[in-house]
């Protein structure tokens, strides 16, 4: 288990894919990747392409697919594109500004054999009502 700073943000693929629909495979693939610095990958023995579990301070967690970041170096930080998966980890503490902390929060990261949940299941697991259709 290792501590990282989580950065979530826009990516071009996410921007394009969301126009194609948030249930598209393309969108799912993009918003469930966790980009890790290559040196961190080495240090923590993570096999790129395998799944990792990210856990926030309040215990909320998601499983994502690890990938070697193409924007390295950024040791100590991992990047997830905006989306409902990143949302699970983000804190709603606004510091009196209204703005939750989408960037710069601390998370724990560990390899896992658990599967990445499809969006529908992710929402069902985390929220009080499921999605329809």
């Amino acid at each position: 288990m290792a501590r990282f700073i989580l950065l979530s943000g826009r990516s071009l693929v996410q921007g394009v894919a969301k126009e194609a629909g948030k249930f598209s495979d393309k969108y799912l693939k993009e918003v469930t990747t966790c980009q890790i610095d290559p040196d961190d990958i080495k240090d923590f023995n993570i096999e790129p392409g395998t799944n990792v579990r990210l856990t926030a301070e309040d215990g909320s967690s998601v499983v994502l697919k690890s990938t070697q970041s193409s924007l390295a170096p950024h040791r100590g930080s991992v990047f997830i594109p905006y989306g409902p998966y990143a949302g699970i980890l983000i804190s709603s503490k606004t510091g009196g500004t209204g703005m939750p902390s989408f960037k710069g929060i601390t998370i724990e990261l560990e390899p896992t054999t658990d599967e990445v949940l499809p969006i529908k299941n992710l929402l069902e697991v985390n929220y009080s009502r499921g999605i329809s259709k």
Partner: protein
Amino acid sequence: MTVISAVLCPGCGCLCDDTEVTVEGDQIVKVQSECAVSTSKFLNYNKHRSTTPLQRVNGELVQSPLNDSVDKIAKMLIKADYPLIYGWSLTSCEAQKKGIELAEEVGAVIDNSTTVCHGPSILGFHDVGEPTCTLGEVRGRADLIVYWGCNPSSAHTRHIKRYTSKSTGKFRESSERKVIVIDVRKTPTAKGADIFVQVEPNKDFELITAIKMALQNEEIEEKSVAGVSIEQIEEIAEMLRSCEFGVLFFGVGLTMSEGKSRNIDCAIGLAQELNQWTKFAIIPMRGHFNVTGANKVFTWQTGYPFAIDMSRGYPKYDPGQTTTIDVLSRKYNDATLVIASDPVAHFPKNAVQHLTSKPLAVIDPHLSLTAYMADVVIPSAFVGIETSGTAYRMDGIGLIMRKVIDPPNGILPDTEILEMIIKRVRELKGE
């Protein structure tokens, strides 16, 4: 086949207005644009949508008549003690005006998605102001461009070519411009910069401060600040001071990370101070195509840009309390209408938990994730594609968006749907 030119793109806050759209029958068949997001938007806008209103019955969304769906939303808003109306960044100013009217009528908190993008920029702005300019001024004059905590190559794909380093203006060739990118990662934008400065996450405030110190010739009692060497800080300061016309574009990398509104206060202060030596401006990189318009409309109608509590029949503005995330995390609201936004796809978990535990209605062209979790969904026409309306570019220039194609049968623009809701609310209130 019709070719429509000078079409505004509802893709992002750049609001490029040189798109060419070819329409054949009831379909957009070709889009001439240099932007992948724009092309994807015009070609895919019609997917993933319902052509009839939906209501949740026994846990499933089923097709429902429009009038009944309007009635349900009206009743939901009237009944609630503290309704929330959220969204607005992907619709027209005309719809945003109707939103204020509705919020006033039902005593709601009305907020736009500024609250989760540049809300802190506005809070910083309240304290210090902002030396800024339109994007054409940048194109015409700027010889130094700084991108801080933003990544236009991915999020505003034509920004660089249309307005900044790759553009040519009256007084400036593209070859005369220098670009500095300051970010936590070496983004695609950073790769194209003359100078990339990698700042440690959450240390932007410290770096801005150090640059100010270098400008003021103050000695820095450190070897590096925010992971940046003093030498590089001094080099940046010198570039800022000695340019002829500089501009700092900042993105959510600055508004969302530690320091939030104070980061912006500090960055604006830097831009103001630089005017002692040169001409310097600062511009926020606004994301959604009409989030700027939402701030403008809200402000001219109420005096405040977002997070407006109309529960007492007048605009009350208390960011930190009346901001959507704060309302949701305190579980204050007991019903929500979401329009032209998809909070379930972006909001923090406990905010979404509360949002989805109370009556929820959605007006949106798409079947968004929020729509899938709603009680009532009314599909609407795509602003800038299926209906016209005003939008404001990130630098505050108002433009009238064109309609290039008819919406599917029975799908109305947001303005008309909102008008129906307002009318129904007044009927139910006996006015």
